[in-house]
């Protein structure tokens, strides 16, 4: 279901801004879809397009070679605000497979993993260095090696990063969380049975399906 993430060598787009919220990544008016795909064209819509729909040439993702970026580097608190998973869907649909920032908002961080996007926390100074690398464009590809947990700069030097072991495993294998959890179905069942036995006061929601 989800694409595996092992290594990625790609162009990185620098976006040196703090507190990029998920409303910026994908504004609410584009959430009226019932699908996951097709959101990439509206990623960062307010920054990318003028009111008449033409592109704003100064925005990084409208410039070559960053139109083909697969890595996005920002400053602190990336993905704050709304829990909309449309934000990682939009990034993925644009082509982004890895986001690097000094810090992330919790829900966005989590949502990235669920979609095969690797979020990497690195100190601000390192993000600034990587942004300088990224500015060199197509000749300065950055490599992400998830197995060995390193970012390789264009000059060949490497920077280690931390990743939760469980999430790393899920990404590398491209595994589906639900399938994993359902392997523990008997534990869930016994939890439910114990609840019913010992805490029968717990209400259920029973009503005509439609009120």
């Amino acid at each position: 279901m989800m694409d595996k993430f092992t290594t990625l060598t790609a162009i990185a787009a620098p976006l040196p801004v703090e507190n990029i919220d998920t409303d910026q990544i994908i504004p609410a008016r584009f959430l009226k879809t019932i699908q996951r795909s097709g959101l990439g064209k509206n990623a960062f819509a307010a920054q990318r397009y003028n009111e008449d729909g033409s592109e704003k040439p100064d925005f990084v993702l409208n410039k070559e070679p960053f139109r083909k970026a697969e890595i996005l580097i920002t400053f602190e608190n990336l993905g704050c605000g709304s829990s909309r998973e449309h934000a990682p869907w939009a990034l993925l649909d644009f082509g982004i497979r890895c986001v690097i920032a000094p810090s992330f908002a919790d829900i966005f961080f989590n949502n990235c993993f669920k979609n095969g996007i690797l979020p990497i926390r690195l100190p601000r100074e390192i993000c600034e260095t990587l942004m300088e690398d990224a500015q060199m464009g197509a000749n300065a590809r950055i490599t992400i090696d998830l197995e060995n947990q390193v970012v390789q700069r264009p000059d060949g030097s490497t920077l280690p990063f931390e990743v939760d072991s469980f999430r790393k495993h899920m990404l590398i294998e491209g595994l589906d969380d639900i399938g994993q959890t359902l392997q523990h179905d008997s534990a869930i069942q016994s939890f439910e049975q114990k609840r019913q036995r010992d805490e029968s006061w717990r209400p259920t929601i029973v009503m005509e399906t439609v009120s």
Partner: protein
Amino acid sequence: MARTLFDKIWDDHVVERLPDGTCILYIDRHLLHEVTSPQAFEGLRMSGRRLRRADATVAVVDHNVPTSDRSLPIEEPESRLQIETLEKNVAEFGVPYFKLRSKDQGIVHVVGPEQGISLPGMTIVCGDSHTSTHGAMGALAFGIGTSEVEHVMATQTLLQKPAKNMRITVSGHVGPGVTAKDIMLAIIGKIGTAGGTGHVMEFAGDAIRALDMAGRMTLCNMSIEAGARAGLVAPDETTFAYVEGRRFAPKGEDFDKACAYWRTLVSDSDAVFDTEVTLDAADIKPNLTWGTSPEDVIGIDGVVPDPASCNDPARARQVQRMLDYMGLEAGQKIAGTKIDVAFIGSCTNSRIEDLRAAAAVAKGRHVAPGVRAMVVPGSGNVKAAAEAEGLDLIFREAGFEWREAGCSMCLGMNPDKLTSGQRCASTSNRNFEGRQGPGGRTHLCSPAMAAAAAVSGCFVDVREMA
């Protein structure tokens, strides 16, 4: 070992602890709305999985719904499709559903507590970051993405690691005209939008105990704006009195048993918090935001910051960018700044108590010329209760629009939007660029402050309007 309220709720829901510390956490209530659920239902269908517990799941339409005449069809085809898709899905999977034209319909975070669906000690999730609202009940409630929505549908659990514990103590008592919204804006202004990252935030202190349930919901609602995973207020007599008699709450002997358990849900006196923050309620003024992040908070007597006084050049650039977007001058007094729109509503501030506070200001006054003022109740039941008290008449006579329940102009997914450049006094929760409509300028404030701005045509200190 001494435990916090969060620890206790967490421990009571751990199904299994995996070797790396990830927990399979049992979920008591799953709330669904039309925007973040269609892809999850589709995933369930594609993988041939069943909805594990329809009797722990509730759906309602709120984000997209028009707040105008409900007897008319929904004009926007994409909104209509999302609503129809939810209706098909709830029918197929047997999910209890509050339909658009029911008086029980409303914003999911207003409906949950109102119906007694959200109860103390529960784990409550929804594909919406403002699920933190339900923490006011003393429940562990947090927003999740659509993949996790599907995970809960299929397994009634989530894979989670425990959060860190943060306690925010607001001691003393707030002065007149200062509300839960002002307290929360003060907190976010103090710790910033990433201040609570990785933490569950428990609110404590006399000023919190003194709040009614609506106030506590306002507080917990915006804990996500401080970056927290969830907000919590320990349940107490105020909570139990609120819960008793609600439609889906336990009744009779079951209620007594529930209460006995709920009374254990307090942080132990010797529990240790990873982070402690304290505020003195007496210092809190009627607050509002000036910029495009909820942490950009000033008191009504304050002035807009000057980028020249920022030490960090990156911050100076950001402040300048926000001033440009907001159409404000450095050093300008926020009081007296003219508004175009006042929006009273959203999951933050659309409960009957909020509407009463706004109506008290609106009564006998009139919306200033050129200002559009709208009141959007949080649910059909809130609307009916307000009408029974005559609040609708007060608002209508004062020139406010009295609308149907929904998320409305909080995020502009329905026709209620700001146009570019319009300035809005809004009781909602996010002042991000474009949040209420492309180019719209949002100032977050309390219902009383929004009503005061509506009738004055500009921001004023509600304390001076007695």
